[in-house]
Every structure is written in structure tokens, then in C-alpha cells.
């Protein structure tokens, strides 16, 4: 059985207890400030004094660092190298390699962009690690997000792993009938045809059944939906959200003012 596609780690922590919307606003604000701030060191400061304390408060540091090592670090290092080499910078050349120049300015810009990206991925990772998808969607639905939209997001998260499992079954079935899945590239591309057909048509049939199943449970009901769990939203969090939005605007104003 494939695992469901969710990063959520169940822990008792301050961050886990926050209202999901507060976490969404926090994540987006951190990213926006990192990107629009006019000061060079903002993304680095945000990483050290925003992301790391949040990880510790959320008690998800172990899960985060493993993701960091596997995904964030390689992405960021790759971006840094590419940008350091290709960003134009009319400044002191630090070194040259295969005719490409790495300048002081290109190095500075590459470092800033790389940390911006690191802050962005980290910020959303913390959101996903500490927020249960169905709690997030329940809260957003309560605030007026259409139920259908929330359903599509949650159902995709759960159904994609099921589709992968099914694709695997189809591959095994085709292999047992002699389909070559391990030879050269072109033959393997060809094998997608017998895979995609059953997968797509099978899924279309399932979609109809699933639609009936959720209709049978009043999915299109015009009553205001209720939620099984109470999702607390204290006044302090509302103030915190507006403060964060305020900070984004202040940063934007500073950027315009200083440019």
C-alpha cells in the first residue's frame, strides 16, 4: 500500500496548534518579505531567525533537515552554481572556468537568490509539516472557499498515490505478457501507450463512481457545511495575521522608497 501524499507530522507543538490560516499567512509573508526586501541580508536573517526558530517551535526539525538534505540543498546549490556562472556582473572577476567568468557581483546575487529560494521552500515545508491538509481545507471552507475546490485539492493528495499503485499494477500485468520495460529509451517510450490507455480509461470510470459516492453523501447540498473538528481561531491570531500582512506592505513601501 502506497503512503498517502501528505507531509503532515502529528506532534503536540505551538505551531501545530496555530490556526491553519495563520500558518498560511505566516508562510506567504515570510516568502514575500524575503523576495521584496530591499536589504541584501533579509533572506539570510529570515532563515536564521525565522525558519530555524519555527522548526524548533514546531518540533519538526528532524523531518525538515532530512527533506532539506534531499531536496532543498541540492536545488539551492544547483541554482547558486548556475547563477554564479551566468548572471552578468560588471565587477571584479574572482575566477574563470571554461571561458565563463564568476564575478563578485554575480556571486553576491547568486547567494541572495539561493537563500531566497531556500527560505521559500522551507517556509512552505514547515506549513505542510505542521498543518493537517483536511484541517486546512475545513478552515478555508468555513471562511468561504468553495467546497468543490477544497475537495479537489485534498482528493488529489490522496488519490495520486493510489494512481501510482495502479500504474504499477498495469506495468506488472503488461510485463507478464512480455512487454519490454528495461531496454533502450525509445522502446520504453513506446511502452507508455499500453500503460496510459488502461490507466486513463480506468480512472475515468472511477471518477463516475466516486462522483456517485460523494453525491450519495450530500456533497452538493446547499446547506452551510459544518466541520467535525472545532478549529480554534483566537483573536490574537487574527491580530498576528494582520500584523504580518502589514509587515509585507511596509517592506514593499521600503523597497519602493529606497529604489
Amino acid at each position: 500500500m502506497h503512503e498517502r501524499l501528505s507531509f503532515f507530522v502529528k506532534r503536540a507543538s505551538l505551531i501545530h496548534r496555530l490556526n491553519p490560516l495563520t500558518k498560511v499567512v505566516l508562510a506567504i509573508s515570510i516568502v514575500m518579505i524575503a523576495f521584496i526586501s530591499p536589504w541584501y541580508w533579509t533572506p539570510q536573517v529570515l532563515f536564521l531567525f525565522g525558519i530555524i526558530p519555527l522548526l524548533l517551535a514546531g518540533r519538526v526539525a528532524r523531518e525538515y533537515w532530512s527533506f532539506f538534505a534531499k531536496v532543498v540543498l541540492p536545488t539551492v546549490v544547483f541554482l547558486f552554481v548556475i547563477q554564479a556562472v551566468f548572471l552578468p556582473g560588471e565587477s571584479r572577476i574572482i575566477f574563470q572556468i571554461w571561458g565563463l567568468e564568476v564575478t563578485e557581483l554575480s556571486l553576491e546575487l547568486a547567494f541572495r537568490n539561493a537563500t531566497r529560494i531556500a527560505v521559500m521552500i522551507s517556509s512552505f515545508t514547515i506549513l505542510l509539516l505542521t498543518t493537517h491538509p483536511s484541517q486546512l481545507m475545513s478552515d478555508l471552507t468555513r471562511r468561504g472557499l468553495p467546497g468543490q475546490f477544497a475537495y479537489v485539492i485534498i482528493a488529489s493528495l490522496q488519490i495520486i498515490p493510489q494512481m501510482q499503485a495502479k500504474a504499477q499494477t498495469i506495468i506488472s500485468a503488461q510485463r507478464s505478457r512480455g512487454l519490454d520495460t528495461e531496454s533502450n529509451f525509445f522502446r520504453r517510450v513506446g511502452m507508455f501507450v499500453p500503460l496510459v490507455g488502461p490507466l486513463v480509461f480506468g480512472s475515468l470510470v472511477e471518477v463516475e463512481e466516486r462522483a456517485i459516492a460523494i453525491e450519495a453523501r450530500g456533497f452538493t447540498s446547499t446547506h452551510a457545511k459544518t466541520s467535525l473538528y472545532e478549529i480554534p481561531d483566537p483573536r490574537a491570531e487574527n491580530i498576528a495575521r494582520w500584523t504580518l500582512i502589514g509587515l509585507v506592505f511596509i517592506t514593499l513601501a521600503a523597497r519602493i522608497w529606497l529604489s
Partner: protein
Amino acid sequence: MAVVKLQNVTYKYPLTDTTALQNINLQVNEGEFVAIVGPNGAGKSTLCYTIAGFVPHFFKGELTGTVEVAGNESSKSNLHDWVLNVGLAFQNPFNQISGAKYTVYEEIAFGLENIGLPRDEMKERVGDVMTLTGISDLADRSPYSLSGGQQQRVALASILVMQPKVLVLDEPTSQMDPIGTREVFGVIRTMAEKGMTVILVEHKVEWIANFADRVIALYDGQILLEGKPQEVLTSDVLMDKGFGISRYTSVARKAKGLGLWTRDSLPVTLDEAVEGFKIG
């Protein structure tokens, strides 16, 4: 009192010329357990969809005649209101999992959230239905991590929790192994014993003979036979038209030809067969 009433119901799916149901007249009384049998393509599922309001609200197509449940007419109602009258569960338990919830407990509450039930009542109903269907120990599991029989019981619980007046089940055990089948039938039997009106499409005729009050044999979109389980399920007509019949009926029929079965009526269940074959 009739809770389900179909009068002269004829139905054609969109873009087809053949009628899936032809002039169906059917009444089901409150608390009655009716089983529907028929070969593939006889219109069993279409009949289920019709009673459950999916024909014509979901499938569109041409429907004539009237479908009434608890005094309300299907064509004059909305599907989302109709599901409070009739609960529908079908074959594939996997496709009945909403996909929107992460635990069995949340999955069962999904329908109640949709109809806007207050939280306290929701929790009470979910707790009750989980006890009734014997799945309380699965509350925190992911619906996708369950066996077929467990998933089908979750699907049944998800419908029962809506407290419909009529329960329509379209081959709920067709994809189950013997253990899963027993689990699911256990729940259906409990519901029938509690006096719920149940309409069940099922191929396992021995099971029907034990529990159904009445059997309807459907063929080519029409009602071919209707009556007590024993009468309908041992009828010669059924055998000629390719219906699934009990192995005990087949054995006794052969035995009758050889003069080894002396009773007038043929058996459907093992107990009836044993009783009939007793010497002396």
C-alpha cells in the same frame, strides 16, 4: 405502508436507443427486505440508481412514470435532498471512499458535514454507527489502508450515518472474499433486523433465501417474477433465462429427475437440501 412506489417507470440512458427499464411497477413496504436478482444487463443497477434518485438527476436520460419515496416524488426533488430519503452503496468499496478524509472516523462524518449537522450530533451519530457496523476499532486508520470487507463496512456506515429511510445496496459483496462477505452481510442483517427498509441486489441466492422477505427477478429491464424467495429462486423460468441459481437447487433438480428428491418444492439453502435428502 409502501415507502417506495414505482409506477410505470421506463428509462433510457442518454445517447442510447434501448430501454434500461421498461414499465416497472414496484412497491416496497416500510421495514421490508427486498432482494433483486437478474443476469448481467438486466437493469438491476439502473433500478437501484432510479430509486436512489441518480436516475434522472445524475445520469440524465429519459425517465417516464413516477418514483416516490416516503410520499415525495423523485423528479420534483433535488438529488442532495433525495439522498436523505434513500442511501445507496454499491460494489466497489474503494471508489466509495471520498478521498477527502484521512481517517475512518472523519470519512464517516463527511456526509454529515455536507448536510450541515451540528458537531455534537455528528459525533454522536458517527459513534453509534461505528458500533453498529463493528468498525469502532478502525476509527483512526486511513480508509485506504483497510481490507475490502472493512472498506465496504466503512462505505455502509458512511451511508447509514445519514439515517436514510431506505437503504439500497447494489451487489455490496461482489468483490469480497468470504470473510469480507460475511462481515458485510452481518451489517445488512443487523439493519434489516432493526426494521430498516432494505433493497438489495445480490447474486448470492442462498443468502437471499435466508433473509429476504421478497425476491424480484429482473430480466431485460422488466420484472419477470416476484414473490417469496423460495418460490422465485427455484423457478424453472430463472434457470432457462440464465439467472444464477443455488447449487442446492441444481442438485435437487437433478435428483428429482432420478427420483431421489420427493418433495414438491426445491431447496435453495443447505438446510433445506439436507432436510429434503433425509432418509425416512
